[in-house]
């Protein structure tokens, strides 16, 4: 592990033109991913996690979406400034991705062995036979039983968990240095979720790669992540080492998620830890986007958009984008 981050996202902005207007899905997000570490990207639905991942991979759906600002520095190069062929060659080889729903993410008309083998054939010029052997090896490695027989099966013949293993095998094919897993367990049964998380953690350890784990489930990341980056309405609101952020939340949104915020009125419902509705990206409030749902909101929050700064009185890598970070920290039990 060197101190230089593998990936460094700075002030990333991504916009989508929709029939209702221009949506700023990612609005100035900044965070780092260091070599070999696991970063959890956390946030409610619609907070811009997947779009951030698409931007890192250079696969923002066109023509509706486009990156309108910022930089994504990977291993010293700005991905956003590279020509399209160069970023394409990085995809799969250097940066790979596992998606949420393995059924729709695998091509229904191709055999899984061929889908995994395609990585070797297209990137390494491997023969059909070599690619098949490599695919078999990978399928064994991700724990697919009777892999030899299953090479020629189609995605619909697999269970959800096995499909996700196929996706993981495909992503790991060329030993990427960064794996982005976008809610890899959300579409799976609870019992299978833990197995897939264990598999990802084990493979990350073996490969020494960096892992960006996107989720909206705190429980999933607690055991595996080194650091956590919290997104709200397209912005990073808090980031830091996971224990630090858990125990000393410096943003009311995080504090709410952690359940450490004092109940505002009456008993809190367990499943909806945060009061109020998620923000409408087409009609964001002035200043801090979280303001309408925040117990700490003041006049300043409406006038001035908070920027990501070091959490007051906390050790260095912990940052928060809240005018009242100090108060949030002291109010917590």
């Amino acid at each position, binding site marked *: 592990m060197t101190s230089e981050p593998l990936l460094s996202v700075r002030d990333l902005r991504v916009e989508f033109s929709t029939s209702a207007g221009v949506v700023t899905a990612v609005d100035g997000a900044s965070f780092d991913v260091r070599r070999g570490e696991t970063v959890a990207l956390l946030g409610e639905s619609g907070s811009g996690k997947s779009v951030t991942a698409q931007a890192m*991979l250079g696969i923002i759906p066109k023509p509706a979406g486009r990156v309108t600002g910022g930089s994504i520095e990977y291993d010293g190069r700005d991905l956003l400034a590279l020509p399209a062929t160069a970023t394409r060659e990085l995809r799969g080889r250097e940066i790979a*991705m596992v998606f949420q729903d393995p059924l729709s*993410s695998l*091509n*229904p*008309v191709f055999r899984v062995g061929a889908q995994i083998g395609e*990585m070797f054939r297209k990137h390494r010029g491997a023969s059909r036979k070599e690619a098949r052997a490599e695919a078999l090896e990978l399928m064994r490695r991700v724990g697919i039983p009777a892999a030899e027989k299953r090479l020629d099966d189609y995605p619909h013949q697999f269970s959800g968990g096995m499909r996700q293993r196929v996706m993981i095998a495909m992503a790991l094919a060329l030993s990427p240095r960064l794996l982005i897993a976008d809610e890899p367990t959300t579409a799976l049964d609870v019992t299978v979720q833990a197995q897939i998380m264990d598999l990802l953690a084990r493979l990350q350890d073996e490969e020494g790669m960096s892992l960006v784990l996107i989720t909206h489930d705190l429980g999933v990341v607690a055991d595996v992540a080194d650091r956590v980056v919290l997104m709200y309405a397209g912005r990073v609101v808090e980031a830091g080492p996971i224990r630090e952020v858990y125990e000393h939340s410096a943003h009311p949104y995080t504090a709410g998620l952690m359940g450490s915020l004092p109940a505002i009125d009456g008993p809190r419902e367990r499943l909806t830890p945060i009061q109020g509705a998620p923000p409408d990206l087409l009609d964001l409030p002035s200043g801090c986007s979280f303001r309408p749902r925040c117990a700490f909101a003041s006049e300043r929050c409406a006038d001035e958009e908070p920027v990501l700064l070091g959490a007051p009185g906390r050790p260095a890598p912990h940052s928060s984008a809240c005018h009242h970070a100090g108060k949030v920290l002291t109010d917590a039990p």
Partner: protein
Amino acid sequence: MAAYVLRRLFFSVFVLWGAVTIIFVVLRLVPGDPAYIMLGPDADQAQVAALRAQLGLDHSLIQQYATYLSNVVRLDFGQSFRLNADSMSLVLQRVPATVQLASTALLVSLLIGLPLGVVAALRANTWIDRGISVFSLLGQSTPSFWLGIVMILLFARGLQVLPSSGSGSWAHLVLPTITLALPFLAILVRLTRSGLLEVVHEGYVQTARAKGLLESTVILSHALRNALIPIVTVVGLQFGALLGGTVIVETVFAWPGVGRLLIDSIGRRDYGVVQASILLVATIFVGINLLVDLIYGFLDPRVRLAGD
């Protein structure tokens, strides 16, 4: 899959029975008696009656139908009233010409229609897409007989670069092929465009991009292969329309195929030949639909493996 094919073959028999029955009824409902038409306006009642008896037309309709069906089952379509030869062999002689025309038209449609559809989808909502859309809309709505006549006037009479009618050389094939292919090609363009636009947002297309594949591989291999699945069914059905189109195109260009024989035979109330042609065309249509189902299964493993 085998059981499925057998079941389909079984039902095909009913489809063919329906076709021969409908054509039997329709032929006898339209005014015009074969005996009158064959003998001409000068024939007297006795001659007509004699010929009617000879042709078996003096029996009741039910009786005629029963005889006809039992003959059809034995693949006997009777003599042509007009040409004094076995009806089915007359039709079969014309089959190669029609097959040549229809298959060239099909090939041309696929070779031009699929790429145009792909380009329209990739350039959706640009002027290229709009241009292709206008072309396919015109192609779909231009009547074949009109297009055929315009082409003859333009290329045969005007520019004198291609023959207007007949067969025998590749040059003879050009105008009828274009006329026959255009509506089919136009439908193919629209189906390919919309099919591709439907799948480009699917997860597996995103995965293909995330794998770092060339955009051409993403579209032509991962997306198009899925987009083709529903297209194949419609193409199969539309091929029936293309077969129907041969009747008009063969007539306009005097192409010696089944379609033209059918038109001539209807005019002369040559029942045997009409019935034999219709049964043959219906059989081809049923066969193609069966083939389409097989291709569908080949393209979509979820269908192919469903029975296992």
